[in-house]
């Protein structure tokens, strides 16, 4: 198990090196001079040539790309991701400030998704092919196909513009959480409910459940004690995977709801061509997704030891 974890941890390194290199190459392929944008933004008007030259020097853009990458990589290895083009503040500081803000949305959203999906999935599996099952399948299919940015706008129209019960956007009290969390929870809820249902069906169809039934154990206790306990393991790990994707989905939702998390940091950085911030974000995302995947795999291997002994990469 330990060597499995170590092997997986080591794999994170080439991933991060490759992805940061790719980001750097791409940022150099882009037409346009970020120095102009930065200088113009500071001046509030088109920047003059002198201002652009000075800004280019200040940002280190007058050095060769390779030496810039090596400098960046050397500093990144020490945890220094450079400074944002737009605020001149350290990228790492801004990233770390915003990660908890994204979690402020993502954790309740995941919780909400689980609270909806797991009971719904279990129920549906118990009433297979009955109307309630069909309804859940339709809802989860609709949920998976719904563009979340559309849903967000519909919810804003209804609850903020028409009914005036929830704030339009921004971070504030609990009320500010409601719309973004609900929107964000939709996709994982849809996927998780399908997954829970199929895991439950798998468990309900297995031999020991049949045996338990044959022994005359009550159906509710068959479900709770035998089926659910076996279905919970894959579901819990699925939650882990879904959480990663929920974090990714937060980019659009944060933009719509003006939520100052990492997602809107990326969107803002893209709009302003703030390369250090984009690169820093990619690095952060690479590391965190690699670690998240690792946690998911390890937890899975932990629940099912057959996996760790398998050897295929």
């Amino acid at each position: 198990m330990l060597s499995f974890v170590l092997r997986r941890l080591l794999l994170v390194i080439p991933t991060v090196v490759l992805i940061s290199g790719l980001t750097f190459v791409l940022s150099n392929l882009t037409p346009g001079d970020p120095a102009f944008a930065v200088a113009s933004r500071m001046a509030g008007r088109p920047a003059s040539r002198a201002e652009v030259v000075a800004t280019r020097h200040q940002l280190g853009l007058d050095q060769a790309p390779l030496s810039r990458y090596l400098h960046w990589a050397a500093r990144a290895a020490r945890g220094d991701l450079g400074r944002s083009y737009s605020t001149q503040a350290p990228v790492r500081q801004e990233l770390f400030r915003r990660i908890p803000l994204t979690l402020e949305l993502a954790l309740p959203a995941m919780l909400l998704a689980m609270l909806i999906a797991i009971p719904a999935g279990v129920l549906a599996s118990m009433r297979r092919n009955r109307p309630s099952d069909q309804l859940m399948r339709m809802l989860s299919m609709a949920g998976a196909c719904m563009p979340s940015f559309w849903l967000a706008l519909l919810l804003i129209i209804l609850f903020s513009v028409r009914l005036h019960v929830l704030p339009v956007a921004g971070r504030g009290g609990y009320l500010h959480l409601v719309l973004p969390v609900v929107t964000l929870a939709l996709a994982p809820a849809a996927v998780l409910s399908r997954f829970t249902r199929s895991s439950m069906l798998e468990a309900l169809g297995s031999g020991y459940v049949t045996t338990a039934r044959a022994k005359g154990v009550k159906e509710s206790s068959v479900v709770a004690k035998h089926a659910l306990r076996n279905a919970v393991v894959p579901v819990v790990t699925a939650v882990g995977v879904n959480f990663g994707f929920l974090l990714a989905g937060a980019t659009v939702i944060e933009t719509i709801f003006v939520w100052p998390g990492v997602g809107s940091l990326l969107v803002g950085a893209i709009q302003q061509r703030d390369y250090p911030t984009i690169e820093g974000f990619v690095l952060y995302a690479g590391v965190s997704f690699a670690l998240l995947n690792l946690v998911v795999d390890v937890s899975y291997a932990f629940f099912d030891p057959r996996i760790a002994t398998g050897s295929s990469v």
Partner: protein
Amino acid sequence: MTVTAAPPSPAVAHPALPSQVGSPRAAIGCLLRDTTAVVGLAIVVLLVVGAVLAPELAPHDPNHVDVLRKFAPPSAAFPLGTDNLGRDVLSRLLYGGRISIGTAVVAGVLIGVIGTLIGLVVGYRGGILDVAVGRVVDLLLAFPPFLLAMAILGLLGPGLRNLTLVLIAVAWASYARIVRSAVLVERHKEYVEAARASGASSLRVMARHVLPNIFTPIVVLVTLDMGIVLLEISGLSFLGLGVSPPTPEWGAMLSEGRTYLSQAPQMMLFPGLAIFLLVLGFNLFGDGLRDAFDPQTRRLPRGRRRWLIAGPRAAPHRGHRFSGSSTPAVRRRRGVGT
């Protein structure tokens, strides 16, 4: 350990792929009996026809500006109302379908084709190429594709061409992985060995023997993927990374409509509905297609059929452990979050 039951079929070699292809006639019959699949197909066909026949069907020029009739509510002349420049929303929606559906189909098919080709070559050749491509695949699968596409597009700059390229660049990997493992299974089977022994070139062996076996499942996956690609396109366009105005595209229209949320809800209502319906259509049809072409599930009772597949598809174990245990569709759907 109290866990005794196996998790949903990790033992199946590639559960994402219907392992054998049933006879086409049986499959089609089965497909037509599947109401939801027929509904899905009908939605897709309707929207595609609308887009293809846009010049005939559209009541107005989609880019004709008449500021004096802006924000008109739905009426006989403008069935879905007008937008902030007085352009007909219905006409823009129909023309927009050409870009939205067209891009989704082109990108979806190219993702499937490129991924399949890479998987075939890598699986068959093996060696250092396999290892190298495997690393890249690992890398791509470690990220939610939407996030990766967004970051790359942010660096490359927006535009429809870049958007399509980026979507292909981040999404081929899962196909390559699935096809590669399918090839590995087939490669050592007797008939392939025999064909090779009889002097057939490796390319021909692949084309003749391996490809037909994986063709149908790949088509199913591409269909399912089409909806995801559409969601990604519209999501990226919504963020301003896709087509530039005045070209009508559903995501971009939705994004424009966001500005006029309260005066002209039709501007965001209908493009969103179109995206939703098309994604739904692709998914329903894709699901039906998969069920129909998979004899293993066809034998099962109706409800069970869909979910048996859905289970492993959504399985939490990642691709690098169980080749293809998570299909692009589900994996990527979760990544879109849009």
